[in-house]
């Protein structure tokens, strides 16, 4: 069982690590690349806490192997904004109280980013549909929906929702 080299561009930076083929992407991100913003909730591709963008699409990183995405572009919650300079999605969650404990929030925000990437004027129903792959056990979903709607309004004038060039 040979270790393999996996290289990804993550949040705009090229990173490599030698890993076992069985290493899950979520462990690769958290343990090999030390980006612990991506959380593991259920570990069975249901809760969506581990959601990240791979090549422009939201996926659950607990149900992917790191080797499968070798050469891909990944964006995690760390790729959104910083504490000093919040991404509009983070600002919206802050302002609309879109979280309580915050555990699921990185995944919820990445799912919402995926939605807004395709539809910057989503209705409440479209937001709920876009968030079908994430589970929050604290807040109920109303504040999350409000936050995503607010984020969409904050980004109304922007051409790019996430990634380089934003």
């Amino acid at each position, binding site marked *: *069982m040979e270790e393999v080299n996996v290289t990804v561009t993550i949040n705009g930076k090229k990173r490599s690590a030698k890993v076992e*083929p069985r*290493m899950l992407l979520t462990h690769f991100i958290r343990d090999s690349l030390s980006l612990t913003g991506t959380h593991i909730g259920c570990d069975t591709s249901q809760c969506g806490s581990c959601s990240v963008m791979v090549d422009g699409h939201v996926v659950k990183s607990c149900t*992917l192997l790191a080797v*499968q995405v070798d050469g891909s572009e990944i964006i995690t919650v760390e790729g959104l904004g910083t504490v000093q300079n919040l991404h509009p999605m983070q600002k919206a969650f802050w302002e609309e109280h879109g979280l309580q404990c915050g555990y699921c929030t990185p995944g919820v925000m990445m799912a919402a980013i995926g939605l807004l990437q395709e539809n910057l004027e989503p209705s409440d129903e479209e937001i709920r549909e876009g968030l*079908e792959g994430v589970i929050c056990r604290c807040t109920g979903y109303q504040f999350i929906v409000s936050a995503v709607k607010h984020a969409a309004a904050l980004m109304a004038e922007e051409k790019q929702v996430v990634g380089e060039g934003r």
Partner: protein
Amino acid sequence: MIPSKFDYVRAESVEHVVQLLQDSDGEGKIIAGGHSLLPLMKFRVTEPGKLIDISRIPELKGVRLERDRVIVGAMMTHREVAENPIIKEHIPVLSDAARLVGDIQIRNRGTIGGNIAHGDAVADLPAPALALDANLIISGEDGLDVINIDGFFLGPLITALPENSVVTSISFEIPPSNAKSAYLKYFHPATGYPVVGVAVVLGVNSDGLADYVRIGITGSGDVAYRAKSVEQELIGKPLTEDVITQASKLAADDGDIGSDLFASETYRRNLCSVYTRRAISSLLD
């Protein structure tokens, strides 16, 4: 959860896949999107010694029209199937079903080829595939082969896919121009899988008689099946409420329906009938 150790190799072409399978002495397992296989590997239900990744083989992508059929590449994701204009125009029941698989993250990775070749009793796409008389195009040791979907599913996770072969594309029949179609699904409230999923393709002639009926049912039985008893009961008849209700009562007859913790056999049989009746009725004006 971490799978057992395995070797990983990325296949460059369909021939390469077959070669790798042959060389693996039965240890090789194909991984496409991995959304059915990896969960099983994480639970160590299965522990293949070698994973053969087919996800970057260009010829497994794409959708094309070929006379009266639509050919869909095995590596098309559920999302791509749900959004593809050719599929939406000619075999919309397939895109309707693909849109109801899992959630958006899962639809971004899971593939049509994997969904069918895995042979999971609760996969969605076998239902529309049966209703669209799908043929699986297979590459193996002896070259190309075609297997009809009806008879492909032998048991839970067991299919007629020959050893050392790979599903490269799936060919769906375009129904007659007068036919309408629907996929109706009763979601398992926790997993989102179909407790029952019914795909109906139905044509009614100018005299108001059913002249084309194909029904595929998934989720409830050991394997997905064609509800031929219902089809035979409907063909040539006027689709009155009574006719539909009577025919739908036969919806579980062609399946091997069992009980589990969530639903008893009696309940599942009833769901098959109710969802078949509703799916058919939804197509009438």
